């Protein structure tokens, strides 16, 4: 068992931390206030190699292990998870192509993303189908050598800036995955949703009206879609958990800095046990959450089943992030409630980690499903 990072990983973390301090944290409040998509920051991230790290080497990518991606996302999440989501969400739509795409599809859709700044989006959620993906209503009707897609996809991250979409649609009763170029006739992108937090992230509705897709753009076989969509999460959940860990780390650092600087009752705030114990809880939970995340990523990188560990990490990191953001606001008192301090933004940004990429309750269902197949836990 080895708990330390390699020299390369330490360098990667340093690089990501420097990028976060220079590019993300100072611009976080501005993007949160305006809701402007952080294209310039993504361009810089692309230049520094923080985008699309998982694309295989033969298609021009870096093929970084998931653990490395987690290390980077944790640093970026400490600056702003809204911006982190904007520059990290490509992975969610790229993984289905990496898993289930053929050589032609990978060359066509993944390779260009390593050459210039581009975005892609994962179109699965629908107004009536969130956690229960099997309820999707979007249809893909086979006509000749093409499929014609009709349906509405909702809460699509990077939906209005994407160059292509991964779309889950039903062919008859078989959920099937497609890659659909965004400039195809019949695609209507909605306006940006006004969400509670992560304002820098672009979340829109995407409507498919008689969108014709050639069968070469189908991923795997008809009926493979659900499996592809779900397997993607084993890969992406450690990264999501890392974003949540970033929030916890930001909450801890902000609360610690404030508690060490603010005077109250003629002593530093941190001298009060009521405050200092909260900080002790925060750092302990952060470490626990972090190790769970790293373990789930490491298992995936070693080619082992990480479904339970990824679900545990995602669930726990989300819970800890939300709790830490609340405690950070509490330690800052009134200043935790004003939008001129970074604490209240953490609170708004943290909530989504208990919801997207499978709500906390779904993660527990996955964990229990795995336990049911286990005779005893060692």
């Amino acid at each position: 068992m080895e708990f330390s990072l390699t020299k390369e990983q330490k360098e990667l973390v340093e690089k990501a931390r420097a990028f976060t301090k220079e590019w993300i944290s100072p611009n976080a409040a501005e993007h949160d206030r305006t809701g402007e998509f952080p294209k310039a920051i993504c361009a810089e991230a692309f230049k520094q190699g923080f985008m699309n790290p998982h694309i295989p080497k033969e298609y021009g990518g870096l093929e970084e292990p998931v653990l490395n991606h987690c290390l980077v996302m944790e640093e970026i999440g400490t600056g702003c998870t809204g911006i982190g989501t904007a520059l990290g969400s490509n992975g969610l739509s790229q993984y289905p192509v990496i898993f289930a795409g053929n050589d032609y599809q990978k060359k066509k859709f993944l390779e260009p993303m390593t050459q210039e700044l581009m975005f892609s989006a994962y179109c699965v959620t629908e107004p009536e189908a969130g956690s229960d993906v099997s309820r999707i209503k979007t249809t893909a009707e086979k006509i000749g050598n093409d499929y014609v897609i009709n349906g509405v996809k909702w809460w699509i991250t990077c939906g209005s800036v994407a160059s292509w979409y991964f779309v889950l649609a039903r062919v008859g009763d078989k959920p099937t995955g497609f890659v659909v170029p965004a400039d195809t006739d019949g695609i209507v992108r909605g306006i940006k949703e006004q969400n509670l937090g992560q304002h820098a992230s672009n979340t829109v509705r995407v409507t498919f009206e008689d969108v014709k897709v050639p069968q070469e753009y189908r991923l795997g076989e008809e009926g493979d879609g659900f499996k592809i969509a779900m397997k993607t999460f084993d890969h992406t959940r450690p990264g999501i958990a890392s974003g949540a860990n970033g929030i916890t780390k930001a909450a801890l650092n902000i609360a610690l800095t404030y508690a060490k600087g603010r005077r109250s009752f003629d002593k530093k705030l941190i001298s009060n046990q009521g405050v200092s114990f909260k900080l002790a809880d925060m750092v302990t939970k952060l470490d626990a959450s972090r190790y769970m995340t790293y373990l789930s990523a490491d298992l995936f990188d070693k080619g082992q089943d990480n479904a339970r560990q990824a679900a545990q990490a995602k669930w726990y990191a989300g819970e800890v992030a939300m709790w830490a953001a609340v405690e950070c606001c509490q330690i800052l008192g009134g200043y935790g409630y004003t939008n001129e301090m970074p604490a209240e933004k953490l609170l708004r940004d943290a909530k989504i980690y208990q919801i997207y990429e499978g709500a906390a309750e779904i993660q527990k269902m996955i964990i229990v499903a795995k336990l049911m197949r286990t005779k005893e836990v060692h």
Partner: protein
Amino acid sequence: MISDLMKLVDKFVGGFKKRLYGKTFFCPVCHLELSYYDVDVNGNLVCPLCGVVIELHETYGHSIPIVNDVEINRAQPKKRLHPLATHFPIGLFPLAFLGALIITIASAYIKASGTNSLECGFCRDISPVLDNITWIFLFIAVLSSGFTFLTGFLDWKQRYGGRPYRVITLKLVLSGLFIGIGIVILILHPVVFTAGVIPFENPVMIPVTFVYFVLMGSAMFMLATLGHVGGYLVFGK
């Protein structure tokens, strides 16, 4: 079209601000945007607007301004001369700019219609009057800007303790430039507008008029910036 223009202006202003202020943060009490350059060697800063004493910390690139004190008994300016004086140049200079513009249009019209044309009678009659009014407005605006500078400087010394805030440095520099450019405009004005019209028959007058309006435009820009920054310093965000 308008939104594109606004984006361009925002980009220009943003670039200028970034160069001048460097990294900024907001006072958590009055929301005034402050520069890291405003912080003293001990990491402290007194907010020029609300007077709280801020201890500035930073973690992971996030600014954490911690308030541990407040300047309750800060010196208040006597009779508030600076806010009163500042409205003379801000009010009169744009009117002078407008007057000069109207005279220029009238001069161009006289030139186009022929010097002796009867149609130009009104223009020829009204232009010298307007020219006199314009010059008086210009004169008062430039003169009062000197007084405004002086009262502002005293305010800075008394109310703000002479602390080198970037926003006040900007005001001082722009005010000085405005006075300098204003004096040049005052000297140039009688050369450009001879007997109330621009003698466009003389080919030299076209570049001279151009220079005059470039200076007027620059002064207008400085005045607008000064007014905006000054208002921001008084009322906050």
